[in-house]
């Protein structure tokens, strides 16, 4: 058990920061219900454990840092369509509406030109966008990003950062990251995990003094580079 006695009530956007191995990803997985935990996690006043698997899928989507895929042939549009699974009738194919939603989502993210490509042939940045498209097609209120820029170069990081910020109007974003530039740019309240405890910062997190205290590294004005 990495985190102890954490009770969490998620109602707004949230960025989760912390050192390596501090339990950020575990916390994210606990929010999705993928790992067992003690304590209580509430999403918009509902207890996570009370939701059925499909209801949960309609509430939360989780975007991993890296796409690991065995099916080498699955194309982008087919992959994004998987996001519609919780809405699909059992045993039946995806509906016309599901397919329309996929089209819309691809257009919204400006990746319609990729739809015929196989997912395994995409670059890391394109794969991250495809994962975001799948999460959006899932139409969940909450999207969890787990280290979205960990495998990206600065220019792709910028694209992803802008997308994530843009999404704050549509959904509730929970962002887990090491990337302080990204965190600062996305500008949500921060949950900082340190030594098995969580600290919550509504606003003042990105001030040099706070950062210095938490990371023990000298910061001089964290520059916002993604605009």
């Amino acid at each position, binding site marked *: 058990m990495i985190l102890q006695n954490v009770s969490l009530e998620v109602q707004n956007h949230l960025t989760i920061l912390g050192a390596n191995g501090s339990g950020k990803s575990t916390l994210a997985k606990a929010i999705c219900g993928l790992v067992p935990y003690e304590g209580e996690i509430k999403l918009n006043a509902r207890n996570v454990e009370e939701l059925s698997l499909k209801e949960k899928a309609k509430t939360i989507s989780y975007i991993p840092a890296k796409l690991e895929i065995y099916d080498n042939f699955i194309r982008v549009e087919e992959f994004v369509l998987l996001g519609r*699974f919780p809405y699909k009738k059992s045993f039946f194919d995806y509906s016309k509406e599901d397919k329309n939603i996929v089209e819309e989502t691809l257009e919204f993210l400006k990746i319609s030109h990729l739809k015929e490509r196989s997912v395994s042939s995409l670059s890391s940045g394109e794969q991250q966008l495809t994962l975001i498209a799948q999460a959006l097609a899932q139409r969940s209120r909450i999207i969890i990003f787990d280290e979205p820029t960990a495998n990206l170069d600065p220019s792709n990081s910028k694209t992803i950062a802008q997308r994530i910020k843009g999404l704050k109007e549509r959904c509730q974003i929970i962002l887990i990251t090491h990337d302080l530039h990204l965190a600062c740019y996305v500008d949500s309240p921060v949950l900082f995990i340190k030594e098995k405890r969580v600290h919550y910062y509504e606003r003042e997190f990105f001030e040099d003094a706070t950062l210095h205290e938490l990371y023990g590294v000298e910061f001089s004005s964290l520059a916002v580079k993604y605009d």
Partner: protein
Amino acid sequence: MIKLFVWAFFFGVLVISPFIGAVNLDVASIFGADSLSSSIFFDLRVPRVLFAFFAGSVLALSGLLFQTLFRNALMTPYTLGVSSGAVLGAGIAIKLGLGTLFFGIGAVSLFGFLGAVFTVFLLIYLSQFLRSAQHESLLLLGIALSLFYSATLMIVFYLGSAMQNDMLIRFTMGSLSVIGWRDPILLGFIALMVFGSVYAYRFELQLLSVSEDQATLKGVNAPRVTLGLLIASSLGIGVLVSVSGPIGFVGLIVPHVVAKIYPTTLSGRILKTALFGGFFLVLCDTVSRALQTQSELPIGIVTALIGGPFFIYLIIAKAHK
């Protein structure tokens, strides 16, 4: 065009296959009443070709299923020891001299099925101790199980009489010879069931082929779907092995070849894999009967002769990537 040719060739083999074998049939009298040719054709050859077709389908579908669920190209019922478990179960039933148990279901079939299902449960139980990414270790577990089963089968040999051992040896070499229509019809139903369950859960499988976590996050009850499909396929493998003995490599080769010919996502390949598997085994069986050797070449030897080199090629191609 080449695809069409392949399917046409396969279909041609299926049609001429019943006419080929140790005894040359008098084509004119096949459809006449009460001739020897007629009874060889309708009681032995046609049931055998159908049995081979269904067997190939079950093996290929199970291979596709295992490869998808465990997300590894080398995972098949054969490489994971599920077939060996069925062989051991069936071998024990032969040694004990058990006949028909109930409802016409033979003890050999039942023990074969139990051996296969037991192995699946054992693998699932043991895989809990592995980290989810360690699928290579699962493969090693399967190989260890296979070796263990082989040794146990040797003990059964050691305890058996000469006659039982002769039956056992022939059984372990694999043979598609069936007499009458009972076995092909039973296997036909089972092949249909395996195909039906894989097809019904094609969307769940597609999600599981991404990752178990991702499938869960989309609302798939991953443990239940995985277990259900594995049991359905073990039923197929168990019944098949108890009649024909182990037939290796079909489950490994066919899904790969179909994926090479049809590079589409999983749900587009299920039916094609089932058909291709059936045709492929009919072809192998036809070759084994056409060779006119002293006695018929066991089918397991034919598929292994083709499959062995292909398996090595796969491992090397994978290492290159």
